């Protein structure tokens, strides 16, 4: 049992923290938001230069062979700096599908572009009525010759506006809520029949609603087994949940730090408001919530390696519950303790709150995961 980082992991942490300290203060972030697509190609390039975009890929695939802990370190740092760039969509999720199910040819076609920063990906999964159930898929993929024809609508596809390649879940067999008969497809964003409606999200990221109308792809578009892809989807989405937990820990750390600094300097009645016990206790509770979240983020990271899929997803669901509860408390109280200034777009704390809030509703909210743990027989 060991919670310390190895020497190499510490170096990784120092290098990404250093990069973001230099290039990602709150003012720079505002500029990046106004760039085409809503994030900075220059920062993305720096992440590529430092090898961070190739982190989880094996060395044979041109990556650096990083594991869950390495991704946790990066996601925490990205959270702390409130980074806009599509690391989750491209490296964690897109990369996850390629790592777990990509053929040699698929990896050769896609991994180098991810690693060098020239290509980004997006995961087109959510449907109008699917909510958080990954198996609830109405979009269809029908066999045509060797290839497939995809029809359907996907919503709130993060990085959907910019991505070069879309990873699409589609039903190859059975009814809307069957767990079998789901396939995963690599679809070029430029394919004929793909139409996008793009928009910014509440937390300053960008997403798109994407319609697929008779989109034709070849046999080489299929990731894994086209009739039995749910386990793959669950595996990758679990990794995304773990990454979101780590990002939320970074966001909470920074929210708490910013809030404590603020109440130390903000004066009312002639004293710093941080000298009032009611505010001190609230800040202490924020600390407790953030530490409990950190513990569960570590637990989820390590659970990512559990061999038993049920045990793995139970642990990750539990972590998402704790993170959801903690982030709501920390986020809301950070605004409360900032008072009026916390309500403004000018102050950075509100932007942290908004990203935290969106994380709760990504890939299953607190109630959804709590029910999963409860129905799965608990944790003890």
């Amino acid at each position, binding site marked *: *049992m060991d*919670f310390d980082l190895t020497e190499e992991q510490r170096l990784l942490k120092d290098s990404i923290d250093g990069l973001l300290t230099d290039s990602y203060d709150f003012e720079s972030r505002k500029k990046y938001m106004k760039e085409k697509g809503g994030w900075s190609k220059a920062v993305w390039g720096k992440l590529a230069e430092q090898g961070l975009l190739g982190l989880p890929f094996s060395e044979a695939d041109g990556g650096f062979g990083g594991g869950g802990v390495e991704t946790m370190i990066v996601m925490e740092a990205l959270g702390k700096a409130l980074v806009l760039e599509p690391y989750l969509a491209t490296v964690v999720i897109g990369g996850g599908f390629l790592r777990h199910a990509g053929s040699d040819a698929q990896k050769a076609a896609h991994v180098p572009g991810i690693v060098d920063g020239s290509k980004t990906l997006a995961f087109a999964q959510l449907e109008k009525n699917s909510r958080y159930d990954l198996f609830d898929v109405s979009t269809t993929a029908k066999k045509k010759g060797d290839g497939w024809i995809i029809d359907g609508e996907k919503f709130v596809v993060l990085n959907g506006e910019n991505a070069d390649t879309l990873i699409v879940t589609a039903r190859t067999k059975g009814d809307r809520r069957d767990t079998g008969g789901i396939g995963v497809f690599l679809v070029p964003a430029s394919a004929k029949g793909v139409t996008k409606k793009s928009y910014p999200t509440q937390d300053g990221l960008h997403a798109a609603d994407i319609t697929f109308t008779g989109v034709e792809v070849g046999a080489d578009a299929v990731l894994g087994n086209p009739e039995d892809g749910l386990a793959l989807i669950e595996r990758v989405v679990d990794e995304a949940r773990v990454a979101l937990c780590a990002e939320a820990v970074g966001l909470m750390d920074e929210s708490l730090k910013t809030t404590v600094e603020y109440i130390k300097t903000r004066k009312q009645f002639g004293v710093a408001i941080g000298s009032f016990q009611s505010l*001190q206790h609230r*800040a202490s509770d924020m600390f407790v919530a953030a530490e*409990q979240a950190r*513990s569960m983020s*570590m637990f989820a990271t390590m659970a990512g390696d559990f061999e038993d899929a049920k045990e793995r997803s139970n642990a990750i669901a539990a972590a998402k519950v704790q993170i959801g509860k903690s982030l709501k408390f920390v986020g809301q109280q950070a605004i409360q303790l900032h008072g009026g200034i916390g309500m403004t777009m000018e102050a950075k704390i509100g932007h942290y709150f908004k990203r935290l809030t969106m994380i709760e509703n990504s890939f299953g909210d607190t109630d959804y995961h709590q029910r999963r743990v*409860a*129905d799965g027989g608990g944790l003890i």
Partner: protein
Amino acid sequence: MDLAFTKEEQAFREEVRTFFRGNVPPDTRRKLVEGRHLSKDEMVTWWRILNKKGWGTSHWPTQYGGTGWTSVQHYIFNEELQSYPAPQPLAFGVSMVGPVIYTFGNEEQKKQYLPRIADVDDWWCQGFSEPGSGSDLASLKTKAERKGDKWIINGQKTWTTLAQHADMIFCLCRTDASAKKQMGISFIVFSMKSKGVTVRPIQTIDGGVEVNEVFFDDVEVPYENLIGEENKGWDYAKFLLGNERTGIARVGVSKERLRRIRDLASKVESGGKPIIQDAAFREKLAACEIELKALELTQLRVVADEGKHGKGKPNPASSVLKIKGSEIQQTTTELLMEVIGPFAAPYDVHGDDGSNEAMEWTAQIAPSYFNNRKVSIYGGSNEIQRNIIAKAVLGL
């Protein structure tokens, strides 16, 4: 970073578990499972078994009879002990006064007290709190005046846990009234059988008697019963209270109780089916289990940190343990109340040690709920813990 225990640690867990299975008297275990109070004899019998095995004072330095375990081994031992469950060693002797004596006492005192603490020849109690000194402990008024080779002690202590069984007390007394409040306090130990010591039981809202008021009326104590230096008692008290950082979360206790809740909830019916099949209840139970898992991980982080970097600088996460640990213990007793529903009501007046063989298991659930309100009050109330986090961690 690696969550897994090593092979050696797993083997150690198995060794501990096997020992408990073979050696904890079954009646003692059953009473703990049912949340009943143990008699003095039952506790002492078990502690002597534990001490004979060499595990009674496991965290003491080896020259005084400790085991030399790593911090992870201590963690495993405590977890297994709490979740078996078996009675924990008497904290007042083994965890509190023992370390003060081997750290600050003289050779004579070590020889005289330590073996008797280990084998529970003396049952110790703690004379800290007073009616006017709760969270503000340093305002204490009990006075020890030097008269020749004796101390004359006058005053009153309260909340003295299990003082009704005690042979000895370690007591914070004011020895210099003119000094600033923390500076004039000394750490004195003496026999509870001394003339002028009166113990008056306090019945708590659960109906049991765990705590007492203790009155000192011209109690004569030999001067050499002073531990360490005169007027340095506050330092020793802080040392004593800072010693036990991780056990306070009582993760094993809550785990055991959650298993019991799950077990009872599959037997007790609500709406014509076991209450565990009720989605709302099941989610509450899951919520509590998740909180406990997070706390367990937080505790492991603190333990691993202590193992690597020593106990000198406390891990900031350690302040979480008391607050969350007590909240979760309270939640588990609430869930038990929910499971038994209307059968929480029957009341049974306990005797001195709270035991009553004929009592149905349900009769202990409400008292346990009432009794557990104490856990967020004692050992520095949770409000005091928040003050500590605000000051020591957040710098407010």
